């Protein structure tokens, strides 16, 4: 006999649980609606892009614009997908330089940020140097780096790191300092050491600042990598743009520009994702 045949009592019980059963479906519904919401959020910008490309294509066809002035989207996408294997190593190199530069710049900025947030003297001594490095146009310094470090990836990584450095430095100092006075005094009442105050209060407090800076730094480091490649390189998307525009290969130039835009969007969305995962406690999230 099947032991799971319900007695009359448990039938009632399972009927009583009916509402609970409908509640169990809720997470699925939620997932569904989340998917829908994501789709809903993606739809408007996607439509805008489609509209821009259609208009663009129509204008070129209507006004008979020459290829060397402005290529049609259809030609650009044709080039991009037709010759994708050509672009792949360039994408990879620029990506590698930008991400490595981002990490290097961020690490240096955080290290200095910790020191400078702890000592006003150090801040006064070092901040002007950082400001000067920031206000000097990176395009002006880039050729020097090529001369010093050659045509490889190293100068690009360094230029990219410099680009990412400053916003991260300023934001991390602010984050380490902008702690709640009540929380600070509370830790002091427990006789917490300076290191403990840093670890338990300043560091987590700086996280929203650091992540918001990271988004800016991420796009800055892509810019840095491309500037580096334009100043002297044999590979990378920056180099592809330089060479192809010299030869009036406009479709290729635009394909590389599109790829850079997509890379920028992808990388900053990654930071945004980290923000959402790490800052769930934050009131702004």
């Amino acid at each position: 006999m099947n032991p799971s045949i319900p007695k009359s009592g448990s039938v009632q019980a399972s009927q009583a649980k009916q509402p609970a059963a409908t509640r169990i479906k809720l997470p699925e519904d939620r997932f569904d609606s989340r998917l829908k919401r994501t789709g809903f959020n993606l739809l408007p910008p996607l439509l805008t892009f489609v509209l821009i490309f259609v208009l663009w294509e129509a204008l070129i066809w209507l006004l008979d614009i020459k290829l060397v002035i402005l290529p049609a989207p259809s030609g650009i996408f044709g080039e991009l997908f037709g010759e994708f294997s050509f672009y792949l190593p360039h994408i990879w190199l620029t990506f590698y330089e930008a991400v490595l530069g981002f990490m290097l710049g961020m690490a240096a900025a955080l290290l200095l940020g910790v020191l400078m947030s702890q000592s006003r003297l150090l801040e006064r001594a070092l901040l002007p140097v950082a400001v000067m490095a920031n206000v000097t146009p990176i395009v002006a310094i880039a050729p020097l780096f090529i001369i010093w470090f050659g045509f490889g990836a190293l100068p690009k990584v360094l230029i990219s790191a410099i680009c990412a450095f400053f916003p991260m430095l300023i934001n991390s100092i602010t984050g380490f300092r902008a702690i709640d006075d009540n929380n600070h005094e509370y830790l002091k009442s427990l006789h917490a050491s300076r290191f403990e105050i840093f670890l338990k209060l300043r560091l987590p407090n700086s996280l929203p600042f650091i992540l918001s800076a990271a988004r800016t730094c991420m796009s800055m480091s892509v810019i840095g990598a491309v500037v580096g490649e334009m100043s002297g390189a044999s590979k990378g998307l920056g180099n592809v743009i330089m060479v192809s525009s010299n030869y009036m290969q406009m479709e290729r130039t635009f394909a590389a520009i599109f790829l850079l835009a997509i890379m920028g969007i992808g990388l900053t969305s990654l930071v945004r994702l980290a923000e959402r995962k790490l800052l769930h406690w934050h009131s702004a999230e």
Partner: protein
Amino acid sequence: MSYISISNLSKRFVRRGQWTEALSSVDLNIAKGSFVSFIGPSGCGKSTLLRIIGGLMKAEEGGIKVGGRSPQEMQADKQFGFVPQAPALFPWRTVLQNMNLPREVNKRSRTDLAEDEADPIELLQAVGLGDFLHAYPKELSGGMRQRVGIVRAFASGAPILLMDEPFSALDEITREVLMHQLVRIWEQHKKTVIFVTHNIQEAVYLSDQVVIMSSRPGRISRVVDIDLPRPRGEKIIESPEFYQYVVRLRESLRERWEA
């Protein structure tokens, strides 16, 4: 025998380039396990006095001994449970993680407190926060946050609790609920509590002693013993004795104000 003894204590601040006397020759003795409120107009130095007792500030003159030692020594030994005006909850920590904060820092000092530690979960349940153990501060109301701040002080095992106007930012209804909860927990745990407030009824309802302070310069004008029975229930508030204390306190505060 006095647990906290303060004699001839003075504290000055520089305010707008001028010396301002925050506290002037304060003398006070506080018995172990008593609930003492400090009441007075703003600027009377009651919060300053609380910070001096807790070793967060130093006085220029006079002596202060807490449990026979200096406030700084007591602080280094984590003998204080501090409840600031705004609850010092770290937003990236859940309620329970915030409760554990006193245990996580300054670990070396911990000597004999461990046995006095109360179960944080039990305490949270007692104030109606049993369902919020893993909630983040942003998910709590102001009253709930302050409740966490208060029970954290009780859970830490520290024998002296320093509360700096913990209810001042709350609405009247929440304030009353928290007041009852505080008195109930305190009557169970019998810590020495220094409670700064500017609410007369709060002071009478909670305290064994009310210290009335006056400003410019900050000094103690009167100490009133509150001889109401314990445990104190909500009925006490409606009793004539309670009302008499409130009137007495109000009068002595006003005397000082008008003088």
